[in-house]
């Protein structure tokens, strides 16, 4: 792959707060025009990593480049070319939509901030509501406006920190369509999320837990790397079975999915044995390919036992 195509390239990033290691020796690369998903449980270090990438936090250790600029010394250059959408709504609630966008336009030195703000408002479909206070918008509209504000200065890199938290499914779908359109036009996107369906919409994903990067690659690659063998168990009254299986040797993960149970293990032979042992009338064991969530739950439980 061509080096100039790497937009984010960081190596060995570490950061601790009050002696607590939040990001531990993290390295990652993101290529231009790709949507890179950043997954992991709460407090895993996703936000801290994103903040280190855009110069809001200084890493304790490690080095790297973002858009070709050093993350330790050229933060201003990175900021000029990066749109960062924070987890909480961060536009001014007491400014109107138009005033917020004009403010951003002026900060980024756009040629005609008013015209650019008007353009962005039209694109967002907020034409008639330009003079409404940003704080009065609904959750979905706030999120659209925040994204619109981020891309108005035409950044080369978009950092989105849990952008769809608290947004309804329709708005989420529209949001992702928009992200794909932007990536198609050449924008690179790093997006953190909790949602598996969103993870599957990313070109590549990185899974982080307890500050450590546990897996990286495309969905298919991550599932293949996991070397997980999975059975789907169906039948009535699976609750007791689930409890028993959790303590059965050779079973790495048990998770209910609706009326069914996902049972997974890295020891394929052992799991086959378990399947035979617990097969009973009314309880069907079926082999299935593991899905992304199986892999992540397994990664997380392993990470927890490794880093208590």
């Amino acid at each position, binding site marked *: 792959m061509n080096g100039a195509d790497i937009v984010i390239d960081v190596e060995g990033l570490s950061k601790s707060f009050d002696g607590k290691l939040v990001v531990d020796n993290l390295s990652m690369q993101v290529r231009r*025009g790709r949507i890179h998903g950043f997954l992991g449980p709460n407090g895993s270090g996703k936000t801290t990593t994103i903040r280190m990438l855009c110069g809001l936090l200084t890493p304790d250790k490690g080095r790297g480049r973002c858009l070709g600029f050093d993350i330790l010394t050229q933060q201003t250059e990175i900021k000029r070319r990066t749109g960062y959408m924070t987890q909480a709504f*961060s536009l001014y609630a007491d400014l109107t939509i138009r005033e917020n966008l*004009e403010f951003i336009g*002026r900060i980024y030195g756009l040629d005609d901030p008013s015209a650019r703000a008007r353009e962005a408002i039209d694109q967002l479909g907020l034409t008639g509501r330009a003079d409404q206070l940003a704080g009065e918008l609904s959750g979905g509209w706030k999120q659209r406006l925040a994204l619109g504000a981020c891309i108005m200065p035409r950044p080369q890199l978009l950092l989105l920190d849990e952008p769809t938290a608290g947004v309804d499914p329709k708005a989420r779908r529209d949001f992702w369509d928009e992200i794909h359109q932007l990536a198609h036009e050449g924008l690179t996107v790093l997006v953190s999320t909790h949602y598996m369906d969103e993870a599957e919409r990313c070109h590549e994903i990185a899974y982080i837990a307890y500050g450590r990067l546990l897996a990286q690659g495309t969905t298919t690659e991550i599932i293949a790397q996991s070397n997980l063998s999975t059975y789907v168990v169906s039948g009535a009254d699976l609750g007791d079975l689930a409890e028993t299986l959790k303590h059965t040797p050779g079973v790495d993960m048990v998770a209910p999915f609706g009326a069914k149970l996902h049972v997974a293990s890295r020891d394929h032979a052992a799991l086959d044995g378990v399947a035979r042992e617990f097969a009973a009338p009314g309880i069907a064991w079926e082999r299935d390919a593991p899905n992304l969530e199986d892999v992540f739950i397994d990664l997380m439980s392993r990470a927890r036992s490794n880093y208590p």
Partner: protein
Amino acid sequence: MSASTDPTGARGEPRPAGFASHPLDEGEGIPRLARLWASLERLYAVFVKELIQLRRDRLTFATMIMIPVMQLILFGFAINSDPKHLPTAVLDNDNSAYSRLFIASLKKTDYFDIRYSLSGPSQIDPLILSGAVNFAIEIPQNFARDLARGENPAILVVADAADPTAVNGAFIALTGMAAQVFTRELLGPLQNLSAKPAPYEVRLQKRYNPAGETRLNIVPGLVGTILTLTMLIFTALSVTREIERNTMESLLAMPINPVEIMLGKILPYAMVGFFQMALIAGAARFIFDVPVVGNLGTFVVLTMLFIVANLSVGYTFSTIAKNQLQAMQMSFFFFLPSILLSGFMFPFRGMPVWAQNVGSILPLTHYLRIVRGVMLKGAGFSDLAADTGALAAFALAAMIVAVLRFRQTLD
């Protein structure tokens, strides 16, 4: 991921086709003037934003008007440093036509409200001690006779000088009266007595505070205290508000530097300060009849300097405080010594040396000298150079601290 082994490969500047011409490029080749222009543009962005927020925040807007008005009314009207109708007790040991004339003249000055007519000197002390009267006046026996003989009889005035400013005006009126009260009565053979000095003596005994100071110039000082209070509070909240409303992270992620943010946030309030100055100065001139002897331009320029100094202090607090409550507490921590040690409350020269030293650090101290100098004495820039220099140094130091304290990262 081959790039991990080849970090140098990423050093070339990526230029995605769709975003080839970037409006924000300010590389080394861009002339300094263009960079300055871009910086001013960002400063202007913050300035406009702050103005809009200020306009929409009704409560802040109301306090801006209400604080000066309230303080003016409180200090200007309610706290009168030249009070009249002070409760007074009189012990007339002579009971002659002359002594009665003297008492009638006392009443006419409007300073004395005779509440008690005493029968013996032992009644004086309890009245003064309890605060029932501010003055006790004792006319000696044979006052009329001694007066006629030209023996210069002495009238004893006992004053409660615990609050010196309260009794000074009255005492000045009393001594002034002494020269004139008997002019009309001392006719014929007694006419030679009416020549100054007064034919009798007023002996003042100040109780509790023998070294009472002269009265203060309250209203010019009010310009300084009101501006200190309002300017401090407004900027003290400006940075903490961004933090509490979750907008700080975004602001820091934008390509703007701390100096641009600071000036953009200070400027709108300098405008507010200008209007407050006009309001207070107008009230001083037209409601309280304080003359403006000096040059109005000098007054405006130096007051603006004082406003900027206070805004810088408030902004500095804002960069140190963790939340708006802390910022408010810090403002009051600064405001109290400003009121007490600047010479607004007590005469500066009357304070102990350590207090004068503390006072000299505060901008209000220097501004009080400036405002009293310009308004009352007609002083110009050259007379006020030292205090002007102190104010400017203070403003600059506060701004430097603020910029150094401003955290550009979330570390």
